[in-house]
């Protein structure tokens, strides 16, 4: 015997609950929708904005992306886009390139390298890594200022041969007990600069294109 009465009564009652609760959520959603969208944009652009603060440029960098040719040169495992920062005159003042160091201590280190049009570094940020907490993770800005030491450097300041950790006879400090991670990061930044060098012309012309 199928107890139809019980089924329909309970089903209906629960449906009423569903109705009420959904209404509540849906209304909240309608109310917060725009704020959330805004927050999500900010979050996406956070790393970009840290390197190129809003005061320095005039465009929405998330909007002006360009495809990276020869992305393997940046260490990337699959195609990604770069970002342009423009001034009021719509001239490119800097590009922000994703880069990947594959020789980290435990896995890949993903980062974003900002390079001014003149080839100096605007800033570097590590986006994602699996380095040992307490050792290799000092490449995060949260843990140490080390990553800021790249600012203002360029391919000839110091000279290419000095783009090494001090232990290997280079310009850059390493952390106590961890040489592998800085070595990997420095290598990747250097590669990004070299990539910029080779592709500078194409990147500095502002012709927006969509993500390939």
């Amino acid at each position, binding site marked *: 015997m199928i107890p139809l009465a019980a089924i329909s009564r309970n089903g209906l009652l629960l449906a009423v609950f569903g109705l009420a609760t959904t209404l509540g959520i849906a209304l*909240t959603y309608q109310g917060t929708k725009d704020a959330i969208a805004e*927050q999500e944009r900010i979050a996406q652009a956070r790393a970009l904005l840290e390197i190129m603060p809003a005061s320095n440029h005039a465009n929405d960098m998330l909007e002006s992306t360009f495809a990276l040719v020869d992305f393997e040169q940046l260490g990337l495992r699959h195609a990604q886009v770069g970002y342009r920062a423009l001034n009021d005159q719509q001239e490119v003042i800097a590009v922000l390139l994703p880069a990947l160091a594959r020789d980290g201590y435990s896995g890949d280190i993903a980062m974003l390298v900002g390079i001014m049009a003149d080839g100096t570094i605007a800033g570097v940020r590590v986006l994602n890594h699996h380095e040992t907490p307490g050792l290799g993770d000092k490449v995060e800005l949260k843990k140490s200022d080390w990553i800021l030491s790249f600012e203002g450097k360029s391919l000839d300041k110091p000279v290419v041969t000095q783009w090494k950790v001090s232990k290997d006879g280079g310009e850059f400090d390493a952390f106590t007990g961890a040489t592998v991670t800085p070595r990997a990061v420095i290598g990747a930044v250097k590669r990004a600069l070299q990539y910029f060098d080779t592709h500078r012309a194409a990147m500095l012309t502002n012709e927006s294109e969509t993500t390939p």
Partner: protein
Amino acid sequence: MSSPSYSELTLNGLWKNNPALVQLLGLCPLLAVTGSVVNALGLGLATMFVLTLSNIAVSLVRHFVSDAIRLPAFVMIIASFTACIELLMRAYAFELYQILGIFIPLIVTNCSILGRADAFACKNSVLPAAYDGFIMGLGFGLVLVLIGGLREIIGSATLFDNMQLLFGEDASQWKIVLSDDYPGFLAAILPPGAFIVVGFVIAGKNVIDAALKRRADANKEKPVRGANRARVTGHIS
């Protein structure tokens, strides 16, 4: 069922029947989001909010639901409040929302096992129910913050770091640095530390309880043995 007094509710929620330390419920957030005070506080407030509101709602509708759909109905109420707070946090405390991750939506299961809706709210009127939800949430939140604080101190010798995530930019001044050349003790911030710190906090509570009990025992007469023995064969004439 006569509703217990407010002071009893308070004592229960904060100490005697503390959801986290005594009932051992809601352990996941207790361990997962207590790496720092700010995370703990964020989740604690969210939980308190949901618990209070859902208790109110459940108490309001308690006469309409039948037994069969009681649980699902209550779960839906809790879920909807959770969904609301999730949306609100996304809108107004996005970074914290990202840090707390899935533990925000998980307030649903968390709260439903806190069981207050089922155990208390559906048997009491709105005011006690609301108060109970609030106190239970508070008891839970306080433990969260306590553990967050301990882990933050042991792990990195700071307190109230990153409070701006919750209270806006001004709060970034609140950070207290206890020692400048502390090498850091990462285990406290990593998962193992969470368990061990909670273990020690529970043990600490046991010590206090034992001391309290000893004091109480000292001035309490022994219960009369067998006072409420039942007559097994008493109904026979």
